[in-house]
């Protein structure tokens, strides 16, 4: 809360404050004004705009306007419609029985164990997959960053293959690999103590979640590694060189120079993946369809709106899911204390 008025000292190595943390110290208005070059150089707002500035503003609206209107149509409208529908008891196959119930649907959802269990499973999947992906992704980013020039292209392509696979296709591939009838995993790995020919991976919660999370990690680690690679590439070489000259070990260089300078990239990676993981649907839909304790909030919303055709209750679940997503974004942005409106690299 006091971030802009009382900036804390950077946690990075002495003399190398994070660029993203350096800016607010100079001007507390930067974040609010959008921090574009034009904005920082402009005088107070009430000043009369020049003809050129007006023309630029007009052009800006003309260019962005259609996209803005389209965004309103395709995102805001359905959200508002869902909020409105969530106040009714309304079933698609009983159109005449529509009844206003106020917030009763939310009351049912928030007092039902199914919702809290599904929320727990969703958070479990989110936390574990994002944590594992972050570590693996960073390792892959380091490999890509340090690979010799001739190897970089093929290496990046190879690492990107899982991410290029359509999620439903990868979900089927993992399902058929682990399924007790069609799978080969049981016969290949039956020498392991916890796997036998009779292991039913999708028959109970823990093994099913293991496969679901493993497939998720396999599929999206490349994405996180690419984001981290871009962050890694932005760390000024002279900083690491200077730390090296000062006798910093690899770990010290990593923890005190490289990682603090990658904070914005790490935040974006974590936020994007956390939101993605929180909305997980395809993998579970294909592998277990939510059976045996593997249901997440997205699946609950789908099953209520599409399966049961209970538009009112389903909309309420969707709205709750939407609020959760906003909350996660808020926590991530506040938690990392990164100014997303700024210029990231802070050059």
């Amino acid at each position, binding site marked *: 809360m006091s971030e802009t008025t009382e900036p804390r000292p950077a946690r990075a190595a002495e003399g190398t404050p994070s660029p993203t943390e350096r800016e607010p110290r100079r001007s507390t208005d930067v974040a609010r004004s959008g921090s574009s070059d034009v904005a920082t150089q402009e005088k107070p707002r009430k000043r009369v705009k020049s003809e050129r500035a007006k023309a630029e503003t007009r052009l800006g609206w003309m260019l962005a306007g259609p996209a803005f209107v389209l965004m309103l149509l395709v995102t805001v409208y359905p959200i508002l419609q869902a909020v409105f529908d969530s106040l009714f*008891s309304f079933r*698609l*196959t*009983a*159109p*005449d029985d529509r009844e206003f119930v106020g917030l*009763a649907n939310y009351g*049912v*959802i928030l007092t*039902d164990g*199914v*919702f809290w269990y599904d929320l727990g499973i969703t958070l479990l999947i989110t936390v574990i997959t994002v944590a594992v992906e972050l570590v693996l992704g960073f390792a892959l980013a380091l490999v890509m960053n340090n690979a010799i020039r001739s190897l970089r292209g093929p290496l990046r392509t190879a690492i990107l293959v899982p991410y290029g696979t359509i999620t439903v296709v990868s979900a089927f591939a993992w399902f058929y690999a682990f*399924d*007790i*009838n069609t799978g080969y995993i049981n016969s290949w790995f039956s020498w392991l103590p916890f796997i036998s*020919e*009779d*292991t*039913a991976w*999708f*028959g*109970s919660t823990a093994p099913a979640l293991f496969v679901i999370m493993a497939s998720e990690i396999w599929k999206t680690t490349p994405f996180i590694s690419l984001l981290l690679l871009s962050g890694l590439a932005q760390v000024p070489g002279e900083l690491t060189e200077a730390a090296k000259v000062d006798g910093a070990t690899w770990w010290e260089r990593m923890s005190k120079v490289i990682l603090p300078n990658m904070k914005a990239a790490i935040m974006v990676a974590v936020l994007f993946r956390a939101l993605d993981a929180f909305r997980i649907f395809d993998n579970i839909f294909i592998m277990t*369809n939510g*059976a*045996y304790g593997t249901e997440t909030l997205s699946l*609950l919303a789908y*099953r*209520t709106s*599409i*399966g*049961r*055709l209970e538009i009112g*209750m389903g909309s309420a*679940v969707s709205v709750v899911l939407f609020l959760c997503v906003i909350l996660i974004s808020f926590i991530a942005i506040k938690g990392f204390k990164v100014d997303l409106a700024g210029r990231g690299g802070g050059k």
Partner: protein
Amino acid sequence: MRRSPDRKSRTRASAGLAAAALIATAALSGCAADEGGPPALTWYINPDDGGQATIAQRCTEASGGKYTITTSLLPRDASSQREQLARRLAAGDKSMDIMSLDPPFVPELAEPGFLAPVPENVVAETTSDIVEGALAGAQWNDQVVAVPFWANTQLLWYRKSVAQAAGLDMNQPVTWDQIMEAAKSQDKQLGVQGVRSESMTVWVNALYESQGTSIVENPGASKDEVQLGLDSEAGREAARVIGTIGRDGLGGPGLSTADESASMALFQGDKGSFMVNWPFIWPATEADQPELLDDIGAALYPRMTADQPSAPPLGGIMLGVGANSDHPDLAYEAITCIASVENQAYYFESNGNPPAKKAAFDDPKVREKFPMAPLIRESLDMAKPRPQTPYYNEVSTAIQQRWTPAEAVNENTPADTSEFIGQVLRGERLL
């Protein structure tokens, strides 16, 4: 911006205009063709081996230019088919001329008036000489609301060698306890569908109906007045059978994810003994492992008690017409053709889906392909549909959730399921 006469851009503009003109002409000529030709009926079909598409072609030709039928494929599983059909019908989609409907979903679509009324003459023609189960599945509130196209039923398939070794006389009706005991004594496994899906509702319903009890006692009731027969002695017996198969490992290690195909794979393997499954397994085995056919026999669905006939599960497909279709009369005319004895016999013989019309069972090609055709017909007459209620989806999903995995099913399961369904229908619980 400077405008300079640019040859390239002029050429591009001309090409663009020409393309636009071409598209417009094509679109207009398309309209003209639509207006001039016979009405095109759309038939939403469930996936099969191409039989429905062929029948659509046959009936288009037989109409003598009165109409054409084009098919549109629905998703693979019955629940997804219902979702798509219900959403389209609720939105007033005019293209819903003919629809292939799974029987348990008929009441849900009939109740809000999504289905066009079946004309008297079509009722008379399509429901005469028909198996009992199919007729029951086509009705809602004592009226025929859909036309039976083909009817399905589960049989008890057995490995002759195992039954013989266990000393079971398969010419006599057998009970669930008998086949469980036989499988156990021979160290074999039973082919049953323990997956959390529609298959589990099919199994549970058959166990209730085989004891003369229904899961929903008053099918036409509103959701506040639905009476469930779940919490009963019959329910505890059904739970005992399913729970024992689960806990004793009689359904194999993959029981909790076993669907019809998985059951068939188990039955065809070394551990195969008895299996309850639809007739498709006969042509499937003939294609995959013809050497097994000599060891496979078929009998009526197992009984719950020795002195009461079983009520085998009923499946199949009904044909419905959307209330918003532009051509309901032509659609019903086309349905009369689709559901003719000849086409039903063709569909059985070519795709393995049994007819609803009794006469189609007498077709020589059918007899050749399915030696057990008379047994299927007998089973269809005894078959009982799944609960007929507009809230079938809630009832079915709750059963699937509470009766899986099989090893966790116990004497409390029926009462627990009954209470849960009541709460869901009253809007007090999430499903």
